[in-house]
């Protein structure tokens, strides 16, 4: 005998993602999904964003790590709320993020930076309910990554080229990268970042700031 089920395997994740997204919108908190390969500089960029924005905005961080708590410990030292998720998985899902949000007072936060697990494949498959997707991509990874991981780059609201100070040492064609992403994604913004250039984080911070203001304006709370 057949029993009909007709359910999407990702249904629960997608439902929880909608709940998370609604929470962010209701509290006027910009939930940012920070994705990229292991070692591309996600924690470094988050750290620099926190340093650059924390005096003006109330920032929280959700750290999704496969193992260990080093990143969370580092970021907690800035006196901001940090929730560490021990995900033991190759990506964050909406349930993980939902449980982290239960440990944060979103009403008291303007921006929550969510560091996904270092991976260019799986995080693109699982909606976590963010309002903005930043994809980081470091120069040493080579300029062919958008072609190899199209789903990730097609979803990005912004791509941040990190370790840009290493450009002279690698055969990395920025123009080619920009063209490849443009073919996959009609709306992305492109930034360049180096920890050694303090002005470079400002542009990313300004981008987050304008998205935060847009979000708050749309709900008339500012």
């Amino acid at each position, binding site marked *: 005998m057949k029993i009909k089920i007709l*359910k999407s395997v990702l249904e629960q994740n997608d439902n929880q993602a909608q709940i998370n997204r609604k929470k962010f919108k209701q509290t006027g908190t910009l939930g940012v999904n920070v994705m990229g390969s292991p070692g591309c500089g996600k924690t470094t960029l988050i750290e620099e964003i926190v340093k650059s924005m924390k005096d003006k905005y109330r920032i929280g961080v959700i750290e999704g790590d496969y193992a260990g708590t080093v990143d969370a410990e580092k970021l907690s030292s800035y006196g901001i709320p940090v929730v560490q998720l021990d995900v033991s*998985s190759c990506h964050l899902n909406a349930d993980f993020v939902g449980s982290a949000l239960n440990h944060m007072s979103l009403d008291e936060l303007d921006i929550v930076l969510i560091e996904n697990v270092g991976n260019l494949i799986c995080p693109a498959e699982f909606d976590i309910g963010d309002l903005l997707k930043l994809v980081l991509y470091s120069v040493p990874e080579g300029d062919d990554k958008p*072609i190899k991981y*199209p789903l990730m780059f097609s979803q990005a609201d912004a791509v941040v080229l990190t370790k840009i100070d290493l450009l002279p040492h690698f055969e990395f064609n920025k123009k080619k990268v920009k063209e490849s992403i443009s*073919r996959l994604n009609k709306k992305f913004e492109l930034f360049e970042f180096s920890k050694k250039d303090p002005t470079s984080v400002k542009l990313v911070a300004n981008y987050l700031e304008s998205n935060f203001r847009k979000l708050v304006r749309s709900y008339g709370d500012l």
Partner: protein
Amino acid sequence: MHELSVTQEIVRILVDEAERHGVKSVDSVKLSLGAFSTFQPYAVNFYFDILKKDHPMLKNTRLEIEVRPGECVCRECGKRFFSESLTQSLPVCPNCGSIFVEILSGRDFKILYMEVNDEDKNSKECS
């Protein structure tokens, strides 16, 4: 690698549905996988054989994963095309060879139905 979490979800839904319908043993489950999904059937089966051991009603369950066609449109030449089989890599436009294609359908992964032995099912109504 990310098949583990989707297989956990498949198991969760099946256990939930089996309990809801009073089913003690599920024979097989039919799933449909879009041709452009990145989930690999062999990996789903691999994890399912491990995870099902924790649930008596799934002990003898087989998964039947059917690949459904997906539709794409080429961003370079505009040609619309279908892929019938699971695409392990990127879809390539058959007209101009471009890899810059937009996937219109075929990324979904659904559980369609489960087959149960009538004798194993209690008298509850099924939907």
